[in-house]
C-alpha cells in the first residue's frame, strides 16, 4: 500500500506547487517567451489535477483524462498563436522584453 502515491492529495499538492511556480513566472519574468513558458507550466498543473481527479473519483473516471486531452489541444493552439504574436512584435520592436512594449502608453 503506497503511503504517498496512492492518495489524491499528493497529486493535488504537486499541481498546486507547479501552478504557483508558473504564476510567479508569468508575473515576474520580463521575456515574453518566458511568460509563455510559465503559462505552459500552469496548464500542465491544471492537467495534472484533472487527471488525478479522473483517476481517484469514481464519477469522473475517463472524464478527467478526456478533459486533459482537450486542454492539451487548446494549449497547442495557444502556443502557436502566442509565439507567432511574439515573433511579429519582435520583428517591429527588436526586443522580446515585455516592459519595452510601451507603444500604446506614449
Amino acid at each position, binding site marked *: 500500500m*503506497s503511503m504517498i*502515491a*496512492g492518495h489524491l492529495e499528493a497529486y493535488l499538492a504537486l499541481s498546486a506547487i507547479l501552478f504557483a511556480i508558473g504564476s510567479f513566472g508569468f508575473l515576474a519574468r520580463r521575456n515574453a*517567451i518566458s511568460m509563455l513558458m510559465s503559462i505552459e507550466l500552469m496548464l*500542465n498543473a491544471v492537467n495534472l489535477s484533472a487527471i488525478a481527479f479522473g483517476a481517484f473519483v469514481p464519477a469522473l473516471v475517463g472524464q478527467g483524462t*478526456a478533459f486533459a486531452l482537450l486542454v492539451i489541444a487548446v494549449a*497547442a493552439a495557444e502556443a502557436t498563436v502566442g509565439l507567432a504574436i511574439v515573433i511579429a512584435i519582435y520583428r517591429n520592436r527588436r526586443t522580446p522584453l515585455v516592459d519595452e512594449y510601451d507603444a500604446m502608453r506614449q
Partner: protein
Amino acid sequence: MPLPGTIPFIGLTWADALFLMLGGAAIAGALFVVLGRDIIRNGLALIASFGALAGIYVILGAAIVAGAQVLVYIGAISVLILFAIMLTQSKAAPTQLVFQAQAAPAAIASAVLGVLLALALGATQWGATVFEGTPAPAGTSSTTAALFGPYLLAFEIASVLILAAVIGGIYLATAPKPGDDEGDEVAR
C-alpha cells in the same frame, strides 16, 4: 526472485519513490524555468519538467495522456518555443535583469496562491475517493468513451480551433512583403 514490497533501508514503496522522484524533477525543472537566467536553458528545463509530468501521468494510469504529453508538449510545443527563443534572442540586448520591478509582489501573490490552494486542499474531505491506495485502472477505453460520448462536440471544436490557430499563426508570423504596406494600410 521477486522484488521486496518496499525499498530496503528506506521503507518507501516503489510507487512512492517513483512519485517523489518524478514530482521532484517536475518541481525542479519548473523552478529552473522560472528562475534561471539563460533562456535557452529555461526551454530545456521545461522539456525535463514535461517529461517528469508524463511519468506521473503513467503512475496515474493515464497512459494516453502521457503519450499525448510526449508528442504534443515535448515534441511540438517545446520545439516551437526553442525556435522562438532562437529567433528572438539578440546579442545586443542581453537580459541582465531577468525579473520585472514587480517581482517581489509577484512572489508574494504566488505564495499566497499556493497557501490558499494548500488550505483548500487540507480543508476538503476527499471521502469520495474509493480508489484509496491505487489509482484507478481506468485505461484508455473509458477515456475514449468519454471523449467520443459527452465530449464529442468539444472534440470537434478543438479540431476547428487547431485549424484556426495554424492559419492564424501563419498569418501572424509571415514577414510582410515590402510592397504590401500601402495595401495593408488601405485595407485597414
